[in-house]
């Protein structure tokens, strides 16, 4: 099986290399092939294997793209520029995308932290009271299912600036998953644990910050990472409101002008930003749930 794969890759890599117009890409394909084979031959488990597997999948994808777009020309060249062209474009456009990132992160960050700051206290309050929970449930069920883009006209009409309206749209997407999961987190704290806390006669503030909040934390973090994903999904929609820069705007703008090379660059850049943010949020999550890691 491995030998067949090896021969296949060798043939494809040779095809890529022999194409006179795409020597650079061919060399890339060669590296891709080597990585893939190394991944296949990698031994035991662990982090090293995962890294090799991920890079092999990535290289395999690039190789397939290169062969389909450049060597065999089976893809529409307007919609699918070759990896080589995209790579050149990426470095050329990097400055503009980097600038756009700050504008996007401003919208995303403000909206996301606003969502955390409103949804967690609201969720703790509602989760802690059966009466509020029953009253809030129908609203949260209905409102969380409505895509926030439908609020755009109202946001523009009611809020003072375009960026406030954008922040509102992202906020309304991130709020519900955090809110609903905070409530679930409070409800799922074992009753005995709450009874133990009640017998300590803690002050209300201490009860909230030392018992309810950490007790609900695993669920809050699930909600927070869902909220983060929703924020990214809504970023493009939010940047349709009067934005002149930003990652979502960048992709949408060049898509309108049929400049698909830049669209792909934008997608790759967004992917890199999401990867970085997810890595940071994982770290935070791990630190907050440290006590779970120490189980024997």
């Amino acid at each position: 099986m491995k030998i067949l794969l090896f021969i296949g890759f060798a043939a494809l890599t040779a095809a890529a290399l022999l194409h006179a117009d795409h020597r650079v890409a061919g060399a890339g394909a060669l590296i891709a092939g080597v990585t893939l084979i190394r991944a296949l031959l990698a031994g035991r488990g662990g982090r090293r294997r995962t890294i090799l597997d991920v890079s092999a999948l990535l290289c395999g994808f690039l190789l397939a793209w290169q062969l389909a777009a450049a060597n065999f020309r089976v893809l529409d060249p307007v919609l699918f520029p070759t990896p080589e062209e995209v790579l050149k474009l990426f470095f050329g456009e990097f400055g503009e995308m980097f600038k756009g990132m700050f504008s996007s992160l401003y919208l995303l960050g403000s909206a996301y932290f606003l969502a955390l700051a409103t949804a967690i206290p609201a969720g703790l309050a509602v989760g802690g009271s059966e009466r509020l929970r029953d009253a809030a449930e129908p609203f949260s069920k209905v409102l969380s299912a409505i895509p926030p883009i439908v609020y755009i006209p109202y946001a523009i009409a009611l809020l003072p600036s375009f960026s406030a309206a954008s922040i509102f749209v992202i906020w309304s997407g991130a709020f519900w998953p955090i809110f609903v999961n905070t409530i679930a987190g409070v409800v799922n704290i074992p009753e005995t644990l709450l009874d133990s806390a009640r017998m300590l006669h803690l002050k209300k503030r201490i009860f909230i910050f030392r018992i309810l909040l950490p007790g609900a934390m695993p669920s809050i973090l699930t909600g927070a990472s869902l909220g983060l994903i929703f924020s990214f999904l809504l970023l493009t929609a939010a940047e349709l409101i009067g934005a002149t820069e930003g990652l979502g705007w960048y992709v949408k703008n060049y898509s309108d002008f049929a400049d698909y090379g830049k669209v792909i660059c934008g997608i790759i850049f967004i992917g890199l930003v999401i990867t970085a943010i997810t890595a940071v949020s994982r770290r935070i999550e791990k630190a907050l749930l440290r006590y779970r890691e120490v189980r024997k």
Partner: protein
Amino acid sequence: MIEFRDLNVSFQDKTVLEKIDFTVADGEFVCLLGQSGCGKSTLLRVLAGLLPATSGGVTIDGRAVCGPERACSVVFQDYSLFPWMTTGKNLMLALAASYPEKKRAEIRDLAESYLEMVGLGGVFGQYPATLSGGMRQRAAIARALAIPSRILLMDEPFGALDPVNRAMLQDLIKELHRDSRGARTMIFVTHDVDEALYLGTEIVLLGSSPGRVIAREKNPAARNLTREKLFNDGSVIGLQRKIMDIYRADMTEKLNHRTLFHSGNGI
């Protein structure tokens, strides 16, 4: 003195506790003995003020219990310690709430000394998840003792432990009771007859569906005798037999009142 006065508890239509009526003198070690589901934990929760009575009630020194009771501290079978705090922080939280005037360093020293008292020196910075079941219950007992309450309530605290740890913790709790010289009343819920005989200076037997007191027995031998001597003591052996007889009679009576086989009409 703790007084249960005609206490009834029902959930929806189901009566869980019926006409509970007895008193506990200060400094006693009372074991509430009964089968699973007989309402002994419910009785403990009503006494702690965690659950309201449907009618009747409990008083401690003549004062009615309403809401979490300051005179009581509780050790549950599970989930007593907060898993997100280290063992030391768990104690410090309880101590800081009880002694708001004390400084943080003092609270820390106190917490360490309570942990040492139950044989847990050196686990201050460890999370409960890293401790064994027995160690966790020791820490929970230390926290309950750290609260300045006169009554210690324990809800099957050793139910999930292995026999060796269980015996060691029974000795610990017995020693703590003896050392308090009557200053601390202990109410201990269990379904294990031997455990009740070893620990309780008084045993209250609860019958099931609905939960009610079916017998109260004094067990003075538990005060002084060691484990080996206790289970060879004539009075304790007699009491053990008596308790089993009472249970058997209660079960037989219940079975007689229940239709075991239906006639099959209408099939």
